[in-house]
Structure formats: structure tokens, C-alpha cells
């Protein structure tokens, strides 16, 4: 079975390297095909592993040593257990679809080969992240996906906004990574190892303060990757990257790494429920906060990005409250329907010549039926309507919140569900139905190639049916993860389900009703609330004014004023004083023998005086 582990892990790397060989050359179709096939192989072997893993058998291998110094010993070790195998299957499945999709999406791009190289490298990093058996290995993947994300967001590097967004993403993630590193250090110095099994076996011996710090540090790391408030701004900007990238990295896989970390470190968080509650609260806040920004945005991809943020908030609520398997389940179903949504958006973008403003679309249903259907399916799944996947996972999270007697959180999520339903269908209505604004603007949309649509069908299928695997999923992962005890009465649970479904349906209904009648009037755009939301609560502006600019000015100040004017000037001044003294003393050297002789006599006199009166220690 180890064979399959290595195949899963290294097939994407191989593909990436092959594509990298041709990175600088013009488009070669086979790079896309080879990488797709290799990712497909990776997917198949992870499915084989999925079948192999059960309650008793997990796969744990140590490939080779990495860092060992002092007492620390970090190997390249990989573990395939119930959690990581779910992640592997999800990641490789979505990646395969995205790879095939990209062959169509990127067909006219001159850096076709480079794109596939980066994309496969990303999959490799992501697999390292989920398969590693220790925190340091997780950190390799963590940084690796950050790098690939940087490369892919800035893929069209000639665009200023793209390279800016890439840098923003990388640097913001670095802020969080520092927190994570601190967590790793603390774990190491308390336990003496970074291996999951050793750490989890020893955490019970640690005091609560230490555990709290570990939990906080690790969660700071998770906040960066999963773009939780206040480190969330990069995700929306990351939409500058090619759309398949947004689907793969910024919806289905990388951004869920933070959730994965919390699930993985669940044994730590289980001992510190207070921290978990903070995580859940932040998650609930982000769920509503991000959804509210999605309500008014006009950028097709940004809306979906905010929706991703919001859904990540849901996952953190579940993970924070200890319902790890539900968080993981939502992570998986979300990966399916969200990547579908993004890839559909990519089709729309192609049809509209990379136009992103949804107000300029409208009525695209006639020209691209397949995409419209797929995106509507994904939106229904996102809104959480029975029997689609989102219903099963999202409702469970609301139930957990209610079960935890965290009614405020539950209420936030409840509002979030309504908002989600509304903005999803606002998007669908504005893009696919209603007045054909694009006609007036001179666009001639067309459907994408059939194979792209076929590539999307597995995702669509899963977005519909994945929810029905809930029980087998539950049984599978709770072999490893701590199960979550529902103490809720069955009838109350039922009421909750109805309530949530009702609110979601009414959100959809309201969106359909409103936008089939031309939407909201222009006067709304004058209102303060609209301005607040469209400007993302002025947070990017705030960061620019309070962090970015002052930091740059301070740096300039440090260089021009402190470094040059104080530190260096002091050094130069010492030199100048010495030089000046010499320059003054130089006059003594007049060349006049007579005066020199007088100086000599004076010197003799001084030496005599010194010799007579000053007796150094003998």
C-alpha cells in the first residue's frame, strides 16, 4: 500500500517538473494532458487508499530524515488515516477536474505550460500538507501552497493588480505563518517532538496555559491560510488569478488548510474549549461579515470569494465547537460545489471576454445552458437546500451551534444562511436571467467546449449526492476523530432543519422575485450601508492607511534619517574628528628646522617630566 501513497504524493510533482521543463516555451498541449493524467493517477491511488483505510489499518511511513539537530528530529513522514485520506481524495478529485478544465480554459494563453507546472506543484504541496505525519511537514506544505498561490495569483504578472494581489496574499499569510511557527516551537519545547502521535500522546501532561498558547498560535496560522478576519482581505484580491486557480486554491483546497489544521489538532483543541469557542465565534462573525459583503458586490468572482470566506466561517464554527467530523464533511462538500461554482464562473468569463461585472451580463441562459444549469445546481447546494450536499453539512453546523447552547452563534449562522441563499441567487439571476444587458454592450457569449462541461459533471454529481454519504462518512472519520454528541431532542432538530431550510428558501425566493423585476433601484447605491459594504467595510483602505503607508514611511525614515543621518553620520563624525585633529596638527610640520627643534626640545622636556614624576607600575 505504501506504493500507492508514494504514487499519490509524487505523481503531481512529476507532472509539475515535466511541465516546468517546457515552461518558457510556447503552448504544448501535451503538458496539460500529462499533468492531468498524472493528477488523475494520483486521484485513483488515493481512492485505492480510501478503500484500504479502515478503523484498524492506517498507513504510516517514514520516507527519510529531514532536520535533526539537538534533540529535534523531523523526518519526512507521511500518514494516511481517515482524515488525511478524505482530504487527499477531495484534493485530487477537484484538482483533476480543474486540470482538465484548464486545458480548455487556458488554451489561448501563451504561458500554458508554466500554468500546468504551477498547478501541479500546488497539488503536490497540498498533498504534503495533508499527508504529513508531523507539524513541520505540515508547515512545508503550508508554505508550499503559499508559494504556489503566489505564483498563480500573479500568473499574469504583467498586470499590476495581479502581482500586487499575489504579494498581498503571500505577505498576509506570512504574518499568520509566524504565529504557526511560534506554535510549533512551543509544542517542541514542551513535548520534545513535532510528530502528531507523540504530541497528542503527551498533551494531557501539559498545563492549560501552555495548551491555550499552543491553540492560539496554531489558530493564528489557520487564520491566515483560511483568510479569517482580520487577515481576510487577500482572498478577495486573489481573484486576480486565473479562474481555475480560484476554484482549486481559493475555494476548494488551500483555504481549507486552516480548517484542516484545527481538525488535525483537534485533540489539543478538545482540551481547551474556551479557545475553541473563540474560534467558533470568530467563524460565525466571518460567516455573516463575508456574506454581507457578497450581497452588494458586482464582481462575479469576488462574490464567490466572499461566499467562500463565509463558508470557511461555518467550518470554523463546527471545528471550534468540537464537531470535527462535521467541519470536515462541510469542507468536503463545500469543495465540490464551490469549485463547480468557480469553474462555471470561468465559463461565463470566457463567454464575456473576461468581463466580471455581473450587472453587464444578464440573460446568458440562452447562450450557455449547460453552464447555467451547473451553476444553479451549485448555488442551490451552497444555499443548503434538500437534497443537495450543502443541506446536509451546513444544517449540521447550525445544529451543533444550537446543541452547544451557543444561540448567538446559531443566530448568526441562521442569518448567514439567509444571506447566502440571497446572494447566490442574486448572482444566478443577474448573470443568467433577466434583461440581456450584454447584448447592448456588444458581447457575443458562447458556450465552452463540450469536454469542459463533461469535466465538470463529476463535481455537479457530487454537489447533488455527496450529502447522502453522511452516515458512512461519519462512521469512517469518527474512527479517528472524536465523535460529537448531539444531546438535542430529535423534534427540535427537525424544527431547526425546517427553519433553516425555510429561511434559505425565502432568501432564494426573495432574490428571484426581486431580480426578475429588475432588482433594487439605483437609490440604494447612495445609502451609507451600501457604500460600507461595497468598500468592504473600508478595511482594505484602513490597512492601507494604518499599516501599509506608515510602514513604508517609517522605513524611509529609518533609512534616510536614522541610518544615514544618525548612525552613519556618527561614524563619519568620529572619523572626521580624527582627520581634523591631524589636519590641525599638520601645521606643526612647517618644515622650519628651527621650530622643529623647538618642538623637539619641548617633547624632551615633557618626557623628562613624565619620567621623573609619573611612575607607572613596575
Amino acid at each position, binding site marked *: 500500500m505504501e506504493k500507492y501513497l508514494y504514487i499519490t504524493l509524487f505523481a503531481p510533482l512529476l507532472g509539475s517538473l515535466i511541465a516546468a521543463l517546457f515552461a518558457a516555451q510556447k503552448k504544448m498541449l501535451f503538458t496539460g494532458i500529462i499533468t492531468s493524467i498524472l493528477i488523475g493517477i494520483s486521484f485513483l491511488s488515493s481512492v485505492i487508499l480510501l478503500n484500504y483505510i479502515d478503523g484498524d489499518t492506517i498507513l504510516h511511513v517514514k520516507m527519510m530524515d529531514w532536520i535533526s539537530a539537538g534533540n529535534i528530529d523531523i523526518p519526512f513522514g507521511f500518514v494516511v488515516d481517515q482524515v488525511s485520506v478524505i482530504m487527499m481524495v477531495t484534493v485530487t478529485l477537484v484538482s483533476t477536474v480543474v486540470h482538465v478544465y484548464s486545458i480548455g480554459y487556458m488554451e489561448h494563453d501563451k504561458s500554458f505550460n508554466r500554468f500546468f507546472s504551477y498547478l501541479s506543484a500546488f497539488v503536490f504541496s497540498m498533498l504534503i500538507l495533508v499527508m504529513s505525519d508531523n507539524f513541520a511537514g505540515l508547515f512545508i506544505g503550508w508554505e508550499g501552497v503559499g508559494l504556489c498561490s503566489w505564483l498563480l495569483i500573479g500568473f499574469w504578472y504583467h498586470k499590476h493588480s495581479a502581482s500586487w494581489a499575489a504579494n498581498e496574499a503571500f505577505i498576509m499569510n506570512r504574518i499568520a505563518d509566524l504565529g504557526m511557527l511560534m506554535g510549533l516551537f512551543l509544542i517542541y519545547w514542551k513535548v520534545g517532538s513535532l510528530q502528531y502521535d507523540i504530541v497528542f500522546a503527551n498533551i494531557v501532561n501539559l498545563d492549560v496555559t501552555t495548551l491555550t498558547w499552543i491553540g492560539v498560535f496554531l489558530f493564528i496560522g489557520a487564520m491566515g491560510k483560511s483568510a479569517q478576519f482580520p487577515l481576510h482581505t487577500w482572498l478577495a484580491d486573489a481573484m486576480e488569478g486565473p479562474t481555475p486557480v480560484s476554484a482549486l486554491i481559493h475555494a476548494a483546497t488551500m483555504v481549507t488548510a486552516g480548517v484542516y489544521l484545527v481538525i488535525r489538532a483537534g485533540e489539543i483543541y478538545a482540551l481547551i474549549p474556551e479557545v475553541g469557542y473563540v474560534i467558533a465565534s470568530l467563524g460565525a462573525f466571518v460567516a455573516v461579515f463575508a456574506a454581507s459583503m457578497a450581497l452588494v458586490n458586482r464582481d462575479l468572482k469576488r462574490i464567490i470569494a466572499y461566499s467562500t470566506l463565509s463558508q470557511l466561517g461555518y467550518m470554523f464554527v463546527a471545528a471550534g465547537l468540537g464537531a470535527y467530523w462535521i467541519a470536515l464533511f462541510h469542507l468536503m462538500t463545500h469543495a465540490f460545489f464551490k469549485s463547480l461554482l468557480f469553474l462555471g464562473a470561468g465559463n461565463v468569463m470566457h463567454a464575456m471576454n473576461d468581463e466580471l461585472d455581473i450587472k453587464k451580463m444578464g440573460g446568458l441562459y440562452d447562450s450557455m445552458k449547460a453552464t447555467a444549469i451547473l451553476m444553479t445546481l451549485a448555488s442551490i447546494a451552497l444555499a443548503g437546500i434538500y437534497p443537495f450536499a450543502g443541506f446536509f453539512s451546513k444544517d449540521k453546523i447550525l445544529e451543533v451551534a444550537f446543541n452547544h447552547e451557543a444561540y448567538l452563534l446559531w443566530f448568526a449562522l441562521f442569518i448567514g444562511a439567509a444571506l447566502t441563499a440571497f446572494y447566490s441567487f442574486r448572482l444566478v439571476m443577474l448573470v443568467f436571467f433577466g434583461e440581456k444587458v450584454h447584448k447592448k454592450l456588444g458581447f457575443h457569449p458562447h458556450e465552452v467546449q463540450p469536454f469542459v462541461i463533461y469535466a465538470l459533471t463529476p463535481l455537479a454529481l457530487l454537489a447533488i449526492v455527496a450529502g447522502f454519504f453522511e452516515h458512512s462518512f461519519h462512521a469512517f472519520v469518527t474512527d479517528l476523530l472524536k465523535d460529537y454528541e448531539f444531546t438535542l431532542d430529535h423534534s427540535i432538530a427537525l424544527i431547526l432543519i425546517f427553519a433553516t431550510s425555510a429561511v434559505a428558501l425565502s432568501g432564494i425566493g426573495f432574490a428571484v422575485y426581486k431580480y426578475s423585476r429588475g432588482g433594487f433601484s439605483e437609490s440604494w447605491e447612495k445609502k451609507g450601508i451600501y457604500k460600507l459594504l461595497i468598500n468592504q467595510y473600508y478595511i482594505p483602505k484602513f490597512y492601507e492607511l494604518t499599516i501599509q503607508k506608515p510602514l513604508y514611511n517609517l522605513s524611509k525614515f529609518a533609512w534616510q534619517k536614522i541610518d544615514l543621518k544618525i548612525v552613519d553620520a556618527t561614524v563619519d563624525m568620529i572619523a572626521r574628528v580624527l582627520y581634523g585633529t591631524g589636519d590641525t596638527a599638520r601645521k606643526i*610640520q*612647517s*618644515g*622650519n*628646522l*628651527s621650530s622643529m*627643534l*623647538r618642538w623637539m*626640545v619641548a617633547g624632551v622636556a615633557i618626557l623628562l617630566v613624565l619620567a621623573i614624576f609619573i611612575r607607572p607600575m613596575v
Partner: protein
Amino acid sequence: MMIGLTHYLILSGILFIIGLVGVMRRKNLLMLFFSTEILLNAVNIGFVAVSKYYGDLSGQMFAFFIIAVAASEVAVGLGLLVLWYKRTGSTDLDSLQMMKG
């Protein structure tokens, strides 16, 4: 009154001061040589006197060394002086300013 070590040393000191003042004040190069000779001989007197006092011959030996060195110094110095006089027509010290730094 016996003439003792002290008197010799006083003589040596007086001569040394005369030489020193000469070195400092005189502007003629020739006079400078004279003053230097006086200085050296002042030291010689001191050496010989102390040598006699202690009954140690090394002081007198040193005096002879100094005489020899002084002689050769004068020989070389006077040669240069003559050359300088031929070239500039003056033996004034203030005209020697070529070593200005």
C-alpha cells in the same frame, strides 16, 4: 674644596642648557652645529664623570663612541652645509623649508 661629581654634573648641565638654547635660538646652520657639539660634549662630560665616580669604564667607552659619532656627523654635516651654501648662498635656517608637510 674638592672638585667632586656634583661639580662635573653641574658643568655638564650648564653646557647642555647652553647647547639647548643655542639649538633653539640660533638661525645660522653653522651655529647649530656648534650647539649640537656643545650638547654632545655636555653629555660626554657627564658620562666620564659618572664613569670615574663608579669606577666603571663603560661610561668612558660610551664617551669615545659619542666623540666618534659626533666627528662623523660633523664631517657629513659640514659637507652638506658647504653644498647648500654653494647652491643658495645662505646658511640661514629659515631658508630650509622643503620638508613642509
